[in-house]
């Protein structure tokens, strides 16, 4: 791809026709935004998946409706690596504007498939070139000019299927699934695949080493994107009120949730057991979430960085007035508008402390689509248990790309609706004080509007209040509430998802990471072992506030690298605020923040440099 690193690609050496590289390479499809390549790329990805080969797909797209360059990379990895590879070996150059750049970015010995008129061979003698007359083939296939650009993409699927030896029967099944119930569309599309396949078979002699061979590594697995998984988690948590404002890259989360709500949550009489509201802005979206949470509903919103900034004031109200709500933040590249279609882990600090005053938030950090589902679900239990807004921090890479996963497990616990007093409880108790810590866990009992008891009501306010929710400006009363909130946050350490010691041996060196950095870091650990003979320990952080295991992990190592995708070492900074002073000095950072998902090679190189290897 155009943004790849040419020098590194060449490190892999020139093409040798004797070499056979099986199930371990990346395909880069360069197209134009809005040209409808998604279906073709999805069929390609699922065909490789259907061959039993671990696969991942990434859409690198512009912030534009149509016309700008876009790249889709598909990585096949027999070892199960799903992170972005820094360069792709196989190029499908469908965009004349970037074709030259794209072929120049190929590693030596790579593969280029392109419209024959582009004559890309002139740029690279060390690449296997397969020129295809896409326009001619498509015109013959499809008399309707309108459909041609879509069908054109299916032709490259056929060409690749032949060249890489992907089973045409598997491709056929994937096309069928893609265009379920639409026989005509299937015929047209699969016809295009066959045409590409036939053209390649008749005209090309294989001159590259890349092959897809059947494996059995994907049986029983699913493919899903993180946004769909988060939305699904929310639905299986019984969400009832959804308020949102469109923003890339979080919109598809709401769309996924809404589809499922319409599917599963409409009564036989046609009444909805949910409400989804497209709000006028993110201020209103979070306001609705807190209003609904206050009135007892499981409520959520989904947004990205700019929306998070707008939600700041309300987030503080939610914290201080102790109102549950779930906020999904699918992070994109900031600051400001930044690069809306690129990924980053750079909202961590602003989310953890979102709002003015002494405010702290519970933040869940999913590192896979499975965790998107699980945390998307658990966030509601935590929000109602802790009576506070809970943030689920995903990112564009996780949210908008397809990932392989084991099927999600149905939640095994009943919903935890937290501490709510009913009218019967009040009859027994006589009265209650909303913010009084009766149980010693720093969480008070609340009532819901409509509770039929003369003593049920209380006054919710963001202004200074005492245990009984009364207005106060008394120093001791104000401070008592703030101290209890602090204790509540401390207690949350034990309630949030614990970190995972991915690798915990006897190394003096530890790595800490969260979210999507995990994919590249796992691969990097193998590279470090293979290339430098070093074993390094690794713990993945899954939530803030930090569990004690994270403190223990830092204490047990001499040096700890915090690997993250932002410029300012936000996770390391957050850890520094939390760790004892003598531990803070152990922290170092490996940072990646150019908008592309971090890749293993980048981490490995940075680690080797910092360690002097």
């Amino acid at each position: 791809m155009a943004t790849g690193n040419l020098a590194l690609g060449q490190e892999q050496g020139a093409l040798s026709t004797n070499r056979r590289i099986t199930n371990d390479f990346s395909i880069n499809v360069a197209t134009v935004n809005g040209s409808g390549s998604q279906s073709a790329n999805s069929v390609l990805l699922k065909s490789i998946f259907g061959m039993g080969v671990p696969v991942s797909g990434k859409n690198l797209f512009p912030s534009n409706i149509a016309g700008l360059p876009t790249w889709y990379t598909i990585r096949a990895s027999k070892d199960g690596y799903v992170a972005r590879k820094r360069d792709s070996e196989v190029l499908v150059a469908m965009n004349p504007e970037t074709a030259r750049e794209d072929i120049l970015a190929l590693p030596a010995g790579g593969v280029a498939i392109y419209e024959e008129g582009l004559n890309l061979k002139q740029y690279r003698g060390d690449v296997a070139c397969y020129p295809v007359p896409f326009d001619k083939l498509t015109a013959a296939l499809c008399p309707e000019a309108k459909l041609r650009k879509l069908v054109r993409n299916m032709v490259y699927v056929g060409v690749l299927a032949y060249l890489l030896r992907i089973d045409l029967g598997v491709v056929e099944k994937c096309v069928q699934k893609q265009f379920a119930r639409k026989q005509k569309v299937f015929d047209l599309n699969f016809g295009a695949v066959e045409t590409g396949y036939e053209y390649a078979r008749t005209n090309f002699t294989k001159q590259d080493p890349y092959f897809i061979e059947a494996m059995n590594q994907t049986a029983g697995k699913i493919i899903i994107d993180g946004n769909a998984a988060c939305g699904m988690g929310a639905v299986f948590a019984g969400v009832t009120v959804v308020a949102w404002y469109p923003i890339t890259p979080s919109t598809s989360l709401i769309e996924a949730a809404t589809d499922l709500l319409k599917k599963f949550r409409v009564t036989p009489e046609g009444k909805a057991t949910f409400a989804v509201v497209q709000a006028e802005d993110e201020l209103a979206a979070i306001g609705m979430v807190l209003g609904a949470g206050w009135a007892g509903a499981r409520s959520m919103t989904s947004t990205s960085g700019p929306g998070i900034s707008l939600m700041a004031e309300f987030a503080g109200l939610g914290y201080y007035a102790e109102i549950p709500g779930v906020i999904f933040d699918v992070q994109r590249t900031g600051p400001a508008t930044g690069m809306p279609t690129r990924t980053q882990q750079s909202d961590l600090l602003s989310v953890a402390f979102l709002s003015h005053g002494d405010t702290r938030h519970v933040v869940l950090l999913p590192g896979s689509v499975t965790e998107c589902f699980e945390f998307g679900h658990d966030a509601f239990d935590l929000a109602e248990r802790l009576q506070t807004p809970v943030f689920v921090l995903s990112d564009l890479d996780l949210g908008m790309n397809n990932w392989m996963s084991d099927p999600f497990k149905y939640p095994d616990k009943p919903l935890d609706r937290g501490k709510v007093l009913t009218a019967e409880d009040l009859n027994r108790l006589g009265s209650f004080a909303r913010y009084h810590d009766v149980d010693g866990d720093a969480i008070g009992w609340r009532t819901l509007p409509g509770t039929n008891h003369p003593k049920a009501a209380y006054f919710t306010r963001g202004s200074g209040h005492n245990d009984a929710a009364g207005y106060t400006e008394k120093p001791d009363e104000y401070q008592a509430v703030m101290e209890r909130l602090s204790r509540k946050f401390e207690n949350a350490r034990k309630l949030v998802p614990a970190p995972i010691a991915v690798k915990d041996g006897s190394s003096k060196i530890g790595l800490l990471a969260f979210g999507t950095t995990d994919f590249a870091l796992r691969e990097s650990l193998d590279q470090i072992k293979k290339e430098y003979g070093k074993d390094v320990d690794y713990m993945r952080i899954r939530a803030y506030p930090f569990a004690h295991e994270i403190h223990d992990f830092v204490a047990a190592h001499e040096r700890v690298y915090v690997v993250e995708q932002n410029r300012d070492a936000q996770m390391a900074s957050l850890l520094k605020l939390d760790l004892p002073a003598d531990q803070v000095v152990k922290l170092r950072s490996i940072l990646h923040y150019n908008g592309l998902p971090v890749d293993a090679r980048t981490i490995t190189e940075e680690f080797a440099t910092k360690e002097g290897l």
Partner: protein
Amino acid sequence: MATATPNPKVNHIGLPIVEYRGGKSTLCAGCGHNAISERIIDAMFEMGVEPERVMKMSGIGCSSKSPAYFMSRSFAFNSVHGRMPSVTTGALLANSTMTALGVSGDGDTASIGMGQFVHLMRRNLPMIYIIEDNGVYGLTKGQFSATADIGSKLKTGVINELPPIDTCAMAIQLGATFVGRSFSGDKKQLLAMLKAAIAHKGTVMIDVISPCVTFNDHEGSTKSYKFLQENDEPINEIGFVASFDDIEVDYDSGEVYEVEMHDGSNLRLRKLHEEYDPTDKANAVRTLMEAQEKDEVLTGVFYIDTQKPTFIDQLSVVDVPLATLPESVTRPPKAALDSLMTNLQ
């Protein structure tokens, strides 16, 4: 609570008025807002609304503090500046069986809250939205708000040169279904309007001119008691007969515009301006604009539509509160997840 007299007067659900009272007001003595709180208490009492069925919602400002001074048995949420509409929307989505009463101010609505205000009106959310309108920011000591009239003078001598926002005209144009203006000093009109508001299903937007005795009640102010007493121009006289009242009133049908409310109550608007039709949207807006040109403070019910579906109707949600639906309804069964997983393989 004060000790009840031996046989206190009770309303039709058996509650004495004391059960509708709130905490002691911390607003200035003579503040129009206190009078509005009193009228809210009277209206809720007379209408026999169960206090536990009411959510008192507010933003920030003097007005927004006032829910603490009425109906202590009702649930209250004093939220953030200008954002009460969204909080109320969320609360009503969670529990659409509640009566929502929002109290805002002219700053809270017409400046910082304008974005949420217009969208609230547009949605016709079933709630009562009261603007306690004094044209001035009180808690920050007397700056003009966006409802201050051109030429109106601050105590410091500063003259307002920007045109006022007419929240009633806006609300009508945007889709609110019960829009009126009153004056905190007009007990009779305000009480009748509030009672009708309680009977209405849809967004009720009432702009109540409520003089600020500390910062905007002087000579040169157009939101002072004196100015209102001199310039209040009722467009109609409001008569309200609740569904549970068994009263026959004689009137000349040519002079009265009669509206049957959602709950079976009757709203009778005696025409004071010739042939004013409160169901004619365009005419209502034009009348308000003309009055503004003439420096008249028109009061009364300007617009009413009892037929338009509310936001809750449009969402077609179940009649019971979403908030307390059991897990068996809200969490899809295991088979649902299994089928989703199969489709993703």
